[in-house]
C-alpha cells in the first residue's frame, strides 16, 4: 500500500488528483467496511469528502499554494470533534451527537488541506483495549480477521491497515494507539503528554490522554505529528517539546526486564540486536523499579478521572444519561470511580495511585540518565480470537507495557516488528518527555 508521503508526491506530480484519491479510499471502504471483509472500522462518513477534494484540485489547477496534507484522506477516532460529523464515542449515549466545532487538531489538518473522510469505530468512550466494546459492533483486524484489532483506537488502526485512509488519528490514555497499531501491523505514535492539544477530545482520563498518529510508516507519523503538535492556549496542559534536530550521537538503547510471551520477547530482542549492529548503537540492560505496578497505578486514576469526566453526560444538553445507556465496561469505570473518590476512602486509592505515578515517573527519568531510548514489546501477548473467554484482569493486562508511557507522560511509539503465527507484533520505543522528534527519527531505523 502506498504511504501518505508517496501519495503527496503523486498528487504534486499530477499523477493522481485529490478527487481520484478520495474516491479510491471511499471505494475501499464501500468494499470492505460493512460488506466483504466487514471490518466495521468506520461509523460515519463525511458526505462532503469528494466535494472538498475537488476544491483542492481546483486550487492545484490554478497553481494556488496548497497545504502539506493536500488531498490526503484522514480517518478520525469518534471521540475527536469534527464539525458537522458525529462524534459518538461508539456509545448509545452520544449516538447522534453532531459536533458544533472542530477540535484543534482537526482545525490544523483542515488548514493543511487534509480531508476528513469519516469517524472511526472504537471501544466505547475509549474504555477498552480490544475493539469489542463498541455499541455499534466489533471492529475486525484486517491483518488477522478472526482476532481482535486491539483498542481503543480499533477503527483508526484497522482503517490504516485495510487501506481505508492515508492517515488516522487516535487517542491514547493507557495504550489505545499503540495496542491496536501493534495488533494490526501499523505504526502508532503517542506523543509526550502536552505535545498535542486535547481541545476537542472527549476525555477518558484527562491527566493521561493524548491524541496521536496511526500510519503506514514512521515518516507518515512524522508528517501528521508536525501538523497536529504545538502549544494551544485552550489546553491547559499543553507545552513545548524539544525542537526537531537530527540525531548526532551514538544512541544507547535501554532494555528493562518485562513479562511477556517469550516468542514476542525473542522477536523484539532479535530486532534490537539487528538495528543496533547496523547503526552501531549500544544496548544496556536496565532496571526500572516498580515497572510491574503499571496497571495498579493506571486504573484507579483512569476510573476516578473518567467518573469525573462523564458527569456532563446527564442527557440534558445532548445525548442520553450515560448510566442508562452505556455498556458494562464504561459502567464499571463510572461505578469504580464514584466509589473510590468518596471522602471515606481518601488516601486509599486515588491518592495512592498518584503517589505511585510520581514514583514511576521518577524511575523513568532516572533510567533516561543512562540511556537514550527504552525498548520493550508494545503488547505482552498476541491478540485473542473473537469469542475467546477472557477475564477482566487478563483484559486489563494487555495494557501492562503501554500504560507506563502514559503514567510517566513520555513519548512512545509502536512499530511493526514481524509476525508470530501470522499475527503482527509491535516493538515499542519510549523516549524522555519532550524528545518526540528524536524518538521518531530513531524509530525509522526499526522499520
Amino acid at each position, binding site marked *: 500500500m502506498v504511504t501518505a508521503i508517496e501519495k503527496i508526491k503523486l498528487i504534486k506530480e499530477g499523477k493522481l488528483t485529490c478527487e481520484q484519491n478520495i474516491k479510491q479510499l471511499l471505494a475501499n471502504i464501500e468494499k470492505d467496511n460493512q460488506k466483504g471483509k466487514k471490518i466495521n472500522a468506520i461509523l460515519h462518513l463525511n458526505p462532503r469528502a469528494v466535494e472538498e477534494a475537488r476544491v483542492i484540485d481546483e486550487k492545484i489547477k490554478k497553481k494556488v499554494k496548497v497545504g502539506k496534507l493536500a488531498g490526503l484522506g484522514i480517518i478520525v477516532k469518534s471521540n475527536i470533534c469534527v*464539525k458537522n460529523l458525529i462524534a459518538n464515542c461508539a456509545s448509545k449515549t452520544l449516538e447522534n451527537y453532531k459536533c*458544533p*466545532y472542530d477540535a484543534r487538531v482537526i482545525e490544523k489538518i483542515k488548514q493543511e488541506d487534509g480531508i476528513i473522510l469519516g469517524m472511526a469505530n472504537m471501544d466505547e468512550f475509549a474504555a477498552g483495549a480490544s475493539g469489542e466494546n463498541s455499541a455499534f459492533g466489533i471492529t475486525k483486524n484486517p491483518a488477522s480477521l478472526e482476532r481482535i484489532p486491539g483498542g481503543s483506537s480499533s477503527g483508526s488502526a484497522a482503517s490504516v491497515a485495510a487501506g481505508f485512509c492515508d492517515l488516522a488519528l487516535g487517542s491514547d490514555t493507557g495504550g489505545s494507539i499503540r495496542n491496536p497499531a501493534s495488533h494490526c501491523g501499523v505504526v502508532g505514535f503517542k506523543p509526550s503528554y502536552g505535545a498535542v492539544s486535547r481541545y476537542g477530545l472527549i476525555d477518558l482520563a484527562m491527566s493521561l490522554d493524548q491524541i496521536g498518529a496511526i500510519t503506514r510508516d514512521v515518516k507518515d507519523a512524522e508528517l501528521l505529528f508536525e501538523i497536529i503538535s504545538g502549544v494551544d492556549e485552550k489546553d491547559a496542559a499543553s507545552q513545548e517539546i524539544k525542537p526537531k534536530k537530527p540525531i548526532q550521537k551514538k544512541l544507547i538503547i535501554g532494555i528493562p526486564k518485562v513479562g511477556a510471551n517469550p516468542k514476542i520477547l525473542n522477536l523484539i530482542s532479535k530486532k534490537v540486536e539487528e538495528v543496533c549492529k547496523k547503526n552501531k548503537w549500544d544496548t544496556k540492560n536496565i532496571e526500572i523499579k516498580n515497572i510491574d505496578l503499571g496497571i*495498579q497505578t493506571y*486504573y*484507579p486514576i483512569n476510573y476516578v478521572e473518567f467518573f469525573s469526566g462523564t458527569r456532563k453526560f446527564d442527557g*440534558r444538553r445532548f445525548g442520553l444519561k450515560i448510566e442508562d445507556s452505556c455498556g458494562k465496561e464504561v459502567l464499571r469505570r463510572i*461505578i469504580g470511580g464514584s466509589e473510590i473518590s468518596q471522602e471515606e476512602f481518601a488516601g*486509599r486509592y486515588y491518592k495512592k495511585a498518584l*503517589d505511585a505515578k510520581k514514583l514511576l515517573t521518577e524511575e523513568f527519568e532516572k533510567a533516561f540518565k543512562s540511556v537514550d531510548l527504552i525498548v520493550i514489546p508494545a503488547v505482552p501477548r498476541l491478540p485473542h480470537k473473537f469469542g475467546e473467554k477472557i477475564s477482566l484482569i487478563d483484559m486489563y493486562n494487555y495494557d501492562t507495557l503501554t500504560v507506563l508511557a502514559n503514567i510517566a507522560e513520555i513519548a512512545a511509539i509502536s512499530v511493526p516488528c514481524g509476525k508470530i503465527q501470522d499475527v503482527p507484533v509491535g516493538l515499542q520505543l519510549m523516549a524522555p518527555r519532550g524528545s518526540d522528534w528524536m524518538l521518531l527519527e530513531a524509530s525509522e531505523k526499526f522499520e
Partner: protein
Amino acid sequence: MAISDEEKAQIRLETRKLLDEFSKALASVKGEEASVIRKDYSRKEKSGKGKEPDNDFKEIMLANAPNKTEDSILAEKKSW
C-alpha cells in the same frame, strides 16, 4: 440492551474487589501529604470582543438537545 440491577450489583462487587487488590499492591508506595504547589501566576485577561462562534454553532447545539425551545435548552430540575 440495558444493564440489569443484578448485573450492576455484580459489577460493583467485582470492581471493588479489583480496586482493593490494586490498592494492596501499592501499599508499599510512600507519598507526601496532598498539597498543591503553584508558582506565582496571574492570568492575563485579553481585551476586546473575543472570538465569535460560527453562525451555525447555536443551531447544531440546539439540534443535539433533547428538549428545547426556539433558542434555549430545557432541563427540568431534578428530572435526571
